[in-house]
């Protein structure tokens, strides 16, 4: 962003909007927008409570288990799709349906399958995160310079070695991009899963706060969730930038 021909740092623009929010909040025009400072105060109040800790631990558990499964299954599946035309044709359509489908509608189905509990939330995280990982990994494997596997074969490598030593490493930038997008979608997955299951984790807190018109607490929690999604994605983004030279050398 530039203002008066000067580059403006993103932090500055965030600060500007925070200021607008604060002012609007103090006018008291909208109940739903309390001043930002009040939201921070509420945040500081809820963070030390047991209720918050329990909600967080159960949420993070679902998030990381679901995300871990999405990575563990998504990368091999995406690689296979990039590697083999048959697999690609076999599952490609389904993956493309799922990546663009309104997955929220699937959560009730998951509830029927897995019951009202943590398993459903994990499944929901998984469903939200996996497809973009699959598609990005597939694209990465497909874009590997064909000379590289040929080179490895010429030195006597077998198919498995070529797969692990060439394809996976060459596709790493795309795989990481997929994981980064997956992490963001997984946040959606965990919140939506818990909201629909409605009796656990931060989903339960969201329910509680909004039902009782506790907008300060509600916003505090929401901002924490945003910050978490942003921070995890940035962490992967950092790793991505460190391997950026892959792309320039291709």
């Amino acid at each position: 962003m530039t203002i008066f021909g000067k580059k403006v740092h993103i932090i500055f623009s965030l600060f500007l909007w925070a200021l607008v929010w604060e002012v609007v909040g103090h006018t008291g025009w909208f109940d739903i927008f309390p001043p930002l400072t009040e939201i921070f105060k509420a945040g500081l109040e809820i963070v030390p409570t047991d209720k918050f800790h329990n909600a967080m631990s159960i949420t993070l558990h679902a998030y990381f288990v679901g995300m871990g499964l999405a990575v563990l299954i998504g990368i091999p599946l995406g690689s296979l799709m990039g590697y083999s035309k048959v697999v690609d044709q076999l599952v490609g359509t389904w993956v493309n349906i799922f990546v663009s489908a309104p997955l929220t509608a699937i959560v009730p189905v998951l509830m029927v399958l897995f019951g009202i509990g943590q398993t459903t939330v994990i499944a929901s995280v998984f469903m939200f995160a996996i497809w973009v990982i699959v598609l990005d990994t597939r694209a990465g494997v497909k874009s590997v310079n064909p000379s590289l596997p040929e080179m490895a074969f010429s030195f006597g490598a077998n198919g498995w070695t070529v797969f692990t030593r060439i394809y996976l490493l060459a596709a790493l930038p795309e795989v990481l991009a997929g994981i980064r997008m997956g992490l963001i979608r997984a946040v959606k997955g965990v919140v939506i899963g818990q909201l629909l299951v409605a009796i656990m984790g931060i989903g339960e807190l969201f329910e509680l706060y909004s039902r009782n018109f506790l907008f300060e607490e509600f916003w505090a929690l929401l901002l924490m969730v945003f910050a978490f999604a942003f921070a995890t994605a940035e962490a992967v983004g950092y790793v991505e930038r460190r391997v950026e030279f892959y792309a320039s050398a291709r």
Partner: protein
Amino acid sequence: MNQVAEKVSNSADDTIVSVDGIAKRYEGGVQALKGVNLDIPAGQLTTFLGPSGCGKTTLLKIIAGLLDPTEGEVRIRGQKVTGPGPDRSFVFQDFALMPWATVIRNVAFGLELSGASKEERYEKATKYIAEVGLKGFEDAYPHELSGGMRQRVGLARALAVNADIILMDEPFASVDEQTRRKFQDDLLDLLAIEKKTVIFVTHSIEEAVYVSDQIVLLSRRPGKVANIFTTDLDRSVSPDEVRRQKNYLDSVDEIWAILREYLQEDESAAARKVRG
């Protein structure tokens, strides 16, 4: 092969690679090669030269064992080729370096795949990195090197596995002319020490005549052997003088005359198509 032939197998004129009745038809119907017969002598540099798309790369990859021929077979010292083997190593036109690995790890990659210990790998890789003139760049990444330097890495990797036969597919095609000439001379110097059989693909007549002991001219697609030239240059003189030798100039002219004929045939064929 009889006993006597075994004993003299390192004499210069011994056939190391025989290409016997090779044809290659790609899926989709392109007939790239048809009826290619060829004997390649050990310890010499043989060049495949021919018009674009005539199947030079295809033939080289069949010899490498990277592609299966549709008909015929390639034998190395009488043994039928069924896949890549430690007796051959390949230098790729686009270098085929792993961008995530340092120069030394790239050079050692062939050794790594053959199961050599880390010490042995690094020792050999270091030696060949120095031999191709890249001492000091062991820990650089490919993207930090120029095109010419990258190809030196590719060459060091091929040398490090100590194969008898080195297959090079237009190794200098993507480097500039000065680098190319320097590289050609360095390659010749290196081969004088290393005593390898080299099969070399190029588009450039001058390059072919300059580096080769033997030039195999392939006809247009479907490629077959049209002509074989042996160049007989006195390499004891400076590179510029080599390029002024009568033998050099005559060979260039002779090959150009043949390639020009292909070109004219192509043009008249195209003209016929337009008219007809």
